[in-house]
């Protein structure tokens, strides 16, 4: 019995609009399939084609771009890089479930090999830098969908990414209306106050990424093992988060507040009588508040599923924006010594007709049209600027507790330059 993917109706429309050869002459179209896979069901919410490359290379890290004529020159790196950037835009619970490939009939035979190659490459690339670990309950199968442009026949298979030598298993692909209208939403805001010393012969700025990563790993571990309360209650892992449901009740979308508790400190592994003193060549300090969101497809979701998806979103959003900041810094190439800089802030955009949002990160010098452009390029989605929600995270840095509400700062145009109020 293979997996059965239930796919949002709109995805069918989208996929049928993709033609090969397309306007640039490429004979196949690749793309990503986004949704949520659990042991009970696999739901696909969105399909996104790999963007075509501009010759002037705007908006994405530059990769050596070659002309894409036949499958021989399929730019796997480009596909995986797109996947990595898209996965940053997915809140908790949503992930890249697999890859699709639309080809002319002549290339149908090679398609399976290509899909296999893409599936493993995409998974490898997006799991780099991941600070949380997969559990036994995570589904490790990814979907590979092939569509022939002439017959419009779809062939759906899955690969288990734990085993690169495994063969594809057949899977079902079924379209349905209203797949994404009643997912459960979990939200929370997390305060950060991390101090990461630069120890052991490391030096800033060269070792900044390494130090950040190690420091974040420790913090991520604390979050992973932290206690999770749903709507103010601590419940057993196997309890359903939507309490008191009638059998076969119509699923309704609900929002749940998540709270994460961690011990105030861990006892030291070695008891000493003196405070540990180390020489360090610098330090990194991460402070502020991040807004987190996660989705669960089923109204029968359990507390442990909820805890898992929101914790992963917490960890992902912090590590993503730090990564993006460091990538940006690398491009700039200038180090200003001791300095405090604002990390990109998270904004949300609701997918029309669904309860699901995607997110993006705005650098301080960007404006809404930049976000809108990115959503178009990476997700192939036209998002009007006024439907982008920027109210969840603050723009400015507050010191000495001058209270300023973040929604007071909401505006849809230009943003003030960042001031740190001392």
């Amino acid at each position, binding site marked *: 019995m293979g997996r059965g993917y239930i796919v949002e109706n709109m995805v069918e429309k989208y996929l049928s609009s993709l033609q090969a050869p397309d306007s640039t002459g490429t004979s196949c179209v690749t793309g990503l399939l986004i949704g949520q896979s659990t042991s009970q069901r696999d739901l696909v919410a969105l399909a996104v084609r790999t963007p075509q490359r501009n010759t002037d290379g705007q908006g994405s890290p530059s990769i050596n771009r070659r002309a894409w004529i036949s499958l021989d020159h399929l730019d796997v790196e480009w596909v995986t890089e797109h996947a990595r950037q898209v996965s940053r835009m997915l809140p908790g619970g949503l992930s890249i479930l697999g890859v699709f490939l639309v080809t002319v009939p002549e290339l149908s035979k090679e398609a399976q090999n290509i899909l296999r190659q893409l599936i493993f490459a995409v998974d490898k690339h997006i799991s780099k830098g991941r600070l949380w670990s997969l559990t036994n309950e995570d589904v490790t199968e990814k979907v590979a969908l092939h569509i022939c442009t002439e017959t419009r026949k779809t062939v759906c298979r899955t690969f288990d990414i734990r085993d690169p030598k495994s063969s594809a298993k057949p899977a079902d692909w079924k379209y349905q209306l209203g797949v994404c209208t009643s997912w459960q939403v979990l939200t929370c805001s997390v305060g950060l106050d991390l101090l990461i010393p630069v120890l052991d012969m490391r030096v800033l700025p060269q070792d900044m990424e390494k130090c950040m990563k190690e420091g974040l790993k420790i913090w991520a571990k604390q979050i992973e093992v932290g206690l999770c309360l749903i709507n103010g209650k601590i419940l057993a892992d196997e309890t359903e988060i939507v309490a008191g449901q009638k059998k076969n009740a119509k699923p309704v979308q609900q929002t749940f507040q998540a709270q994460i508790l961690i011990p105030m400190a861990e006892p030291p592994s070695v008891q000493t009588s003196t*405070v540990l003193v180390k020489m360090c060549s610098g330090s990194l300090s991460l402070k502020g508040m991040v807004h987190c969101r996660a989705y669960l497809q089923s109204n029968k979701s359990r507390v442990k599923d909820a805890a898992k998806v929101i914790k992963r979103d917490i960890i992902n959003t912090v590590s993503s924006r730090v990564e993006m900041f460091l990538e940006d810094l690398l491009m700039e190439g200038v180090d200003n010594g001791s300095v405090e800089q604002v990390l990109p802030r998270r904004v949300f955009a609701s997918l029309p007709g669904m309860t699901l949002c995607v997110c993006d990160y705005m650098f301080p010098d960007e404006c809404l049209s930049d976000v809108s452009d990115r959503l178009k390029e990476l997700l192939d989605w036209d998002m009007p600027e006024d439907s982008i929600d920027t109210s969840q995270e603050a723009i400015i840095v507050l010191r000495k507790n001058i209270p300023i509400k973040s929604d007071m700062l909401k505006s849809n145009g230009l943003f003030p330059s960042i001031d740190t109020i001392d």
Partner: protein
Amino acid sequence: MENREQIICQLNTTNEPHIQKVISRTFEDLCSQVKSESLVLSVCNSPVFIWPNKGGRATPECLTPNSPCKDLQQFIQTDDQESMKSKKKEKTNASAVVINLNLMTEVTEPADLSATTLMRCSTKHHFLYTAMPMDCVVSLPSSERLSVVYDALVVALCSQLDEMKKVMLRHMKGMTLLIPQPFHFLLPDPVGLVTVVYPAGVPDSQLEIQRKELHSRFELPGNRPYLRRANSLHFPDEPYKDGYLRNPHLHLKPPTLGNGKLYLVQGVYSYHHYMQDRVDDNGWGCAYRSLQTICSWFQQQGYTEKAVPTHKEIQQALVDVGDKQGSFVGSRQWIGSIEVAAVLDQLLGVTSKIMFVSQGSELASKGRELANHFLSEGTPVMIGGGVLAHTILGVAWSETTGEIRYLILDPHYTGAEDLQVITDKGWCGWKSPQFWDQNAYYNLCLPQRPKTI
């Protein structure tokens, strides 16, 4: 209620003269963490979580700030073993209930709603890091409202942080900072429960000045220890890590004599007997074990920091004072009361009185002396005679009738640390004067408390 947890204190300092300021500031930060809305108290072994700085909000919700604190007990899940035992024996509900709490922080309750920033600092400096071992105790009647309890706990945590800061600064030497450790003491009424912070790594012998200050503050007598680390309160729910039984005599029903009174050992001792510590001293080690019991008393009352001596260490001490030849060490030779007194003097600086009876039957007339000993010194007594050595832990004596019973701790027991067996079979038990060999002569060693704090 007892509160046991640690806080991470991260200090970032550039040069020595500034350390004091930075440390003070760090403790202020810790104090504001304790007062912040993100502080969560978690009741051990229960699903209860409390936000003391958010109006006493708790989960489960039926625990309101106005609920009496005894309501917490119903949520606490005890060990299966313990609840079985309490079904068998009568429930004596007079003792205090201990509720343990852990400190947690809610990361989803951000104090600072700012945009996330990354600050990079490239200057060389010292990084100091430790976890502060916070341990606060608050003692309240079980009918007291939870809101009062929460306030008391937060106040206790803040004042402990302040104490810890003072101790840390007082004992600071350059970049060496000692970790402050809290100890709880149950002092005689009206003082009651008190927590003192001592610097780790500084032995009791070097903290006499602090103790003198505290003795005078609490109006404690200046000739016996109350505030040494060994005197610290042992909570009823904590097991002893070394595995020895403490005060098994407390589980016995004392004899009732007409007009009789009980005169018992004061404080805490450990039961030492044959075959313990993988030493097979069956048949020859009884006096050594009695001596170990006495040493354990001096250690637990804070008169010495030395561990209870092994058989070899006892023998070596006798060689060192010239009482025995070198070949004595490692042998299976018996010792008597005189040797016990000599070892107590050599190893612990404790002097002893020796009592001699020429016949066992005379022991029945020693009631007054033994009673006085337990009243003024309260130390366990080693008695040797015939071929046996025992420990006397107390007497039940009637001044009018002269009737006497002896509370005996028998070192000849070879079994495991099973309280039930030890009390049922009389290895720790009340004995009549017929217990003694009526014709043998006996020597008793009565250790005297050193006059020190």
